[in-house]
């Protein structure tokens, strides 16, 4: 069977996440957001998180464009981190991400898989200025809850 390796990368559940992703879109109550890309391949991921009072990730959404691995892994990650505390998320390592994805990846394709993980790890340090949970200045919140995808200044 000549296609063993590829069957491993393009497993059914990976393709399912690619074509029917979990939480692709905007998070209405986003408190944190970040985006980044892999310039080498042009993969782009934008993540919006709603982090609640208990430092818990209430909701996680992504938008993006790129290869199957970058987009399917983002979908898997959104599904995985909802309900996690921020501390637990910070301890969710790159190795954990590769394990979550499941398929064996060459080093170049690992970068695709780890893009959303990198963005999520930066997003927890990138509060959205007009976030509903942080309405320090009344009247400054966007009633639509929409966030703009360029919040690079706070990424630690």
């Amino acid at each position: 069977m000549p296609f063993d390796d590829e069957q491993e990368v393009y497993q059914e559940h990976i393709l399912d996440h690619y074509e029917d992703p979990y939480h692709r879109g905007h998070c209405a109550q986003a408190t944190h957001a970040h985006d980044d890309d892999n310039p080498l391949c042009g993969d782009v991921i934008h993540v919006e998180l709603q982090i609640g009072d208990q430092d818990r990730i209430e909701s996680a959404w992504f938008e993006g464009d790129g290869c199957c691995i970058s987009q399917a892994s983002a979908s898997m990650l959104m599904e995985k981190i909802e309900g996690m505390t921020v501390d637990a998320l910070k301890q969710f390592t790159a190795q954990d991400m590769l394990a979550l994805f499941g398929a064996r990846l060459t080093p170049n394709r690992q970068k695709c898989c780890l893009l959303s993980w990198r963005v999520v790890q930066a997003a927890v340090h990138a509060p959205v200025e007009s976030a509903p949970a942080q309405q320090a200045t009344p009247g400054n919140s966007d009633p639509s809850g929409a966030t703009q995808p360029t919040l690079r200044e706070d990424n630690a």
Partner: protein
Amino acid sequence: MAAPTTLPFDPQVLRADFPILSTVLHGDQPLVYFDNAATTQRPRQVISSLVEAYEQHYANVHRGIHWLSEQSTDMYEEARESVRRFIHARERHEVVFTTGATASINLVARSWGDHHVRPGDEIVLTEMEHHSNIVPWQQLAQRTGCTLRFLPITDDGLLVLEALDGLLHERTRLVAVTAVSNVLGTVNPVAQIVSQAHAAGALVLIDAAQSVPHAITDVQSWGADFVAFSGHKMLGPSGVGVLYGRETLLDAMPPFLGGGSMIRRVTLEGFEPAELPAKFEAGTPPIVPALGLAAAIKYLEQIGMDNIGRYESMLTARAHQVLEAVDGVHLLGPDPRHKAGITSFVVQGIHAHDVAQIMDQHGVAIRAGHHCTMPLHKRLGIAASSRASYYFYNTLDEIDQLAVALQHAQRIFHRAGRSRHGERP
């Protein structure tokens, strides 16, 4: 499909010279090597020339009095003569060995650019340039305050030549343009561009990395002032490339790198540079790679560059035919008659990296990404593309493998009604 009977040579006979082409991967998939625009493979004749050089002739060049150094120096200079003949340069010392096309272009940007370009001067590039013919000029612009202008391309990947005269004026110092686009495959009318640029008083640098390996090169009939190319894209070793420059220009340029070889005399107070071409070959040059390049040139000359060009046109025409027949495949660049042996494409709904990964499972090695042309991809409105690029050792049957692999990719990705919850229609 029966192969046309008019092949200019038997590719199977030539393939036998390339040990790597008999590779079988993933158990039973013969290697189909379609990444020749990135780098080509090497025939035994080139590989053995390297071994022979190290085993029998190797010493440093232009230094020793001893027998071995004399021999090494003679062979290195004979390699320069091979290059001169191959590109039809007038003088041997117009051929400078560098480490590759990138180094050649940087040499011109540093040596010629730093000394001749003033704030407000302009350099004209095109939208289809490789990063190696953009970034050195952006760096020059940062150093000197000159301005870069870009000749646009049409949607199907041809230069908008009518716009060139409008870009050229008395402050245009240089036009730097690729002879063949490494993505679109477009063959540009170099001689015409040179003549228009010269009429406006500008010099011309040709990035010939994608043309020298595939067609007859005549730097004099081009009229070009500088020509840059790499050895590894034409059967030679990596680590050697060439800068051709017109003698009067090279003579007037200051040395770029300083060190051994490039000097006539050094005192504690200063130095006198050496004559051409040593002036631009500081340090120990890529001696053995240069000998390998000469062996590669000998091999190419035996096939005949016109034969190679003719055969690759057949491969490109077949690739267009085969790829256009696959639904959802969009070919980049112009009609095959304006193309060298490069076909880039995008597949609807499948990212270039996924295309390349599935191709790889069929043993087909293609390139995926932006191919060092991010501005070109932005112009085309795409993030990435897939590129199959050919050489004389590829076959028409191999081209057909492209379609087989693409159809397999589409079977994987285009299954309707996928759901994370496992329901299947």
